[in-house]
């Protein structure tokens, strides 16, 4: 359930592509919905990556509760592959699953431009009141159709290496660290400058310029589109601030010059080549996986300078489904507060349901992460949710964001100066958006 920008397909891209091919062939033979088999109803679910629902045992539980339901999940590793395949199937209505997951980067397009292919959940008396307002708003179209229910969110913090901080003479306690840059990304970069001069020689401050950009820009309401729905990344304050902060990291040689989620980037995570990284909940698992035992106990988790959300997904029901009613019931159950809490305690995906956070305060607050020096992540994420702006999302958010991250990486690796990189980025994005 992370944002997987397409420029950052990992080495599993091939696997993902292969899986997509398989999915294509598999689905073309068995039409959507599955069949009724002696009263049994098969509900198919299409997801991307390690979505977590199956891993947390939620399907199993639902099947136990409902004897007549069988749930089958198909997962495509990369969201960009998954979404492209979804797009090709929607207009024909064939090969679709009953339930399709949608990443936040695509939710605007799904809700507004492709809304007719999805079930309007208003027709099924679904309770959407328990979601965070901004999360529910993202899956609601301008004319009031609700096409998706939120699964998780990505309240952002910063992960940092305590050992490197100590070497650089910086505080290591997570509260003191949060104080270093509280309220200001400028301070975060300034701390980075200090780190670069005092810290270990072969360690950089941050993993990638694109990561810095994402973290900063997600703290602004207006990023790539304005409230009127027009592309406005060239003028938006968010983009311009985020670009400048990221360029400072580039100019200060503070990054490992990688694109996130590439194999090389994964190796730099594993080898501990950098001291800080923007950390939505799903990133913790990523770091723990990649760094393994070598990094255990060395990482900790501090608050981000400004609140922001990175990633998170939705579940939708397709119009082509043969079992809309059952499918709607299933997604309602999967995204209900109790199940969201379980998804968090089992998988670390932070709830998008306000009620889940309020009702199960003790359960959520009690969650700690042993890999991150037993950081009380339940408590920290709950704080990180405060003040997350209602992002204005647009249909081509993903393309624009990746274009900008690409431009920053070019500045970082090919010696373009800020203006050159910006010009090249604008040309590239405009070309991609042009009809």
């Amino acid at each position: 359930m992370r944002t997987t920008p397409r420029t950052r397909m990992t080495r599993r891209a091939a696997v993902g592509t292969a899986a997509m091919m398989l999915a294509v062939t598999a689905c073309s033979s068995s039409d959507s919905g599955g069949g009724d088999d002696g009263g049994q109803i098969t509900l198919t679910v299409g997801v991307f990556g390690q979505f977590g629902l199956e891993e947390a045992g939620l399907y199993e539980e639902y099947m136990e509760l409902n004897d007549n339901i069988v749930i089958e999940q198909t997962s495509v590793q990369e969201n960009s592959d998954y979404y492209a395949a979804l797009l090709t199937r929607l207009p024909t209505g064939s090969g679709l699953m009953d339930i399709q997951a949608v990443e936040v980067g695509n939710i605007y397009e799904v809700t507004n431009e492709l809304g007719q292919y999805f079930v309007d959940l208003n027709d099924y008396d679904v309770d959407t009141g328990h979601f965070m307002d901004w999360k529910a708003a993202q899956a609601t179209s301008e004319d009031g159709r609700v096409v998706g229910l939120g699964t998780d969110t990505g309240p952002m913090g910063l992960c940092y290496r305590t050992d490197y901080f100590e070497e650089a003479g910086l505080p290591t306690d997570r509260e003191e660290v949060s104080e270093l840059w509280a309220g200001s990304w400028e301070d975060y970069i300034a701390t980075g400058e200090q780190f670069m001069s005092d810290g270990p020689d072969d360690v950089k401050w941050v993993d990638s310029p694109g990561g810095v950009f994402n973290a900063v820009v997600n703290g602004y309401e207006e990023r790539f589109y304005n409230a009127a729905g027009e592309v406005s990344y060239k003028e938006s304050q968010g983009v311009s601030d985020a670009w400048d902060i990221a360029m400072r990291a580039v100019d200060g040689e503070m990054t490992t010059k990688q694109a996130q989620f590439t194999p090389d980037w994964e190796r730099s995570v594993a080898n501990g080549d950098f001291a800080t990284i923007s950390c939505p909940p799903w990133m913790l698992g990523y770091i723990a996986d990649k760094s393994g035992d070598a990094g255990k106990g060395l990482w900790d988790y501090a608050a981000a300078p400004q609140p922001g959300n990175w990633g998170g997904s939705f579940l939708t029901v397709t119009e082509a489904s043969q079992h809309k009613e059952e499918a709607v019931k299933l997604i309602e159950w999967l995204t209900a507060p109790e199940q969201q809490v379980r998804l968090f305690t089992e998988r670390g995906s932070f709830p998008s349901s306000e009620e889940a956070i309020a009702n199960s305060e003790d359960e959520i607050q009690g969650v700690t992460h042993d890999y991150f020096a037993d950081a009380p992540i339940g408590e920290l994420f709950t704080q990180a949710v405060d003040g997350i702006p209602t992002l204005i999302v647009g249909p081509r958010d993903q393309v624009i964001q990746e274009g900008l991250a690409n431009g920053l990486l070019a500045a970082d690796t090919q010696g373009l100066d800020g203006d050159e990189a910006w010009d090249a980025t604008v040309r590239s994005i405009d070309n991609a958006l042009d009809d």
Partner: protein
Amino acid sequence: MTTDRTNAAPPAEGGAAPRPAPDATADEKELRRRRRRSWRYRMDTKASPYGFVAPFFLFFGAFGLFPLLFTGWAALHRVRLQNPGEMEWAGLHNFTRLLSDEFFWNALANTFTIGILATVPQLAMALGLAHLLNYKMRGQNFFRVVMLTPYATSVAAATLVFAILYGRDYGMINWALDLVGINPVDWKNNTWASQIAISTIVIWRWTGYNTLIYLAAMQAVPRDLYESAALDGASPWKQFLHVTLPSLRPTILFTVVVSTIGATQLFGEPLLFAGSPSGGNQNQYQTLGLYMYEMGWMNFNLGRASAIAWSMFLLLILIGLAYWAVSKWITRSTGGRRSSR
């Protein structure tokens, strides 16, 4: 139809061989039957071949020609992946815009340079290797099979391994360069380095294949040519130059054509090299195939993607025509030599 064939040409009785004078009882019926048989026979010989090749053409029509024409039709429209049924006439706009599309020209140039970087060393090495393999040696078959193993490897597997080898910070190639005191190369972000890296993947995969084709052609060169050349005092190098190469010309042309087509359509290697259809953060190794894919499946613009696809098709036709002209010229010049032999 095949069962009719035996009827149409029965070995003993009804054959075309002169038959005994017809019985008085051999009436009109028999005659009619024969006439019908011979009609069926004629139809069989005339029509059956078309019947036999029909499946291919039906499939080609459905999965080759129709998509080709439909792509051409889509290229004349504004079409988006979200709603492919909704086509808005755009005329030649998608094509004319390519003329001023810097990303298209960039992709074209990359396709060309990677094509040269990959094809020339590949064919030269294949020729040399084939020459070596053509000598009598132990374990001939072993070497030939080894030659072909890269070809049998999947593009994805090969590319992913190469992508790791070419890693900037932890790649084995930079590590080896470092051992001999050369600064690490940024194989993924540097324009030339990335194109060379991708070319090596292509070279690695296809050299063996071409080697075997050359080897087969070399073995068809008559031994006596070499013997007489040796008698005339030609060194092995001269023999290679003046006997082997001229005899191989049509084969070389064939491999060049196949490699060129492959190079024009290069897709898997650059896509998986860093796992992105943009071909590097500044499109430094984006090929035409990748640009088309990015336009269609990342930017969801099927109309523009179709126009790029058709440009590639037209480009291949141009290249095909050029090679056809060259091959005419080659057969003319080698044809002359053959007749003098």
